């Protein structure tokens, strides 16, 4: 699966190209599933993090999950861990995702839960740049 980086405006009138891809999140063993939304592919993130609105949308009570903390550039914040299904193209991944009360994007796809399932190539040679995802299966 190849996805072009998505264009985001910058304050100076230029455009940034950012590795956002389309995903959906579903509740495990339940029919609830989100609409398609854009999440950023972020190798610096330890795991996959979504805002509480995504949990609410699929019928998950945020604070019923295991409470942990995550460090980000703005400091640390509480997150709650819930098992979900992450839909990426035709792939459905069973992951434990973190949900946070404040997030500047609709989703962050990090190493645990996302990068561990794909060989990912960030390719700046195309215009616009893009990323290539190849599903891998560990034995």
């Amino acid at each position, binding site marked *: 699966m190849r996805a072009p980086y*998505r*264009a*985001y*405006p*910058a*304050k100076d009138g230029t*455009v*940034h*190209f*950012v590795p956002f891809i*389309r995903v959906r999140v579903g509740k495990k063993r339940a029919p609830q599933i*989100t*609409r*398609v*939304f*854009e999440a*950023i592919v*972020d190798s610096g*993130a330890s795991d996959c993090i979504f*805002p509480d*609105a*995504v949990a*609410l*949308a699929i019928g998950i009570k945020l604070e019923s999950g295991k409470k942990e903390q995550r460090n*980000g*550039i703005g400091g640390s914040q509480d997150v709650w861990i819930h098992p979900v299904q992450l839909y990426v193209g035709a792939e459905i991944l069973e992951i434990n995702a973190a949900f946070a009360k404040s*997030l*500047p*994007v*609709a989703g*962050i796809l990090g190493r645990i839960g996302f990068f561990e399932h794909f060989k990912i190539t960030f390719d*700046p040679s195309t*215009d*616009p*740049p893009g990323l290539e995802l190849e599903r891998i299966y560990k034995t």
Partner: protein
Amino acid sequence: MKMKRNAQIDARVAALLDAPLNAWIALSDDETRLVAHGATYQDVVNKLDEIGDDSSVILKTPPSWLPLAV
């Protein structure tokens, strides 16, 4: 890195600049039009349901259009 900007990219950027900041929005499937916006994810889903739209893609806009560092 300087990139070529085509009409679709320009339309996406224009749609994002038209959208409210720190909000949930929906762009058309081709990402050229702002279809809905709201304060919450559910607001946007409700608006999409009202117009029978099942193909738009949902985004969260940041508080400002600064470069992202999450």
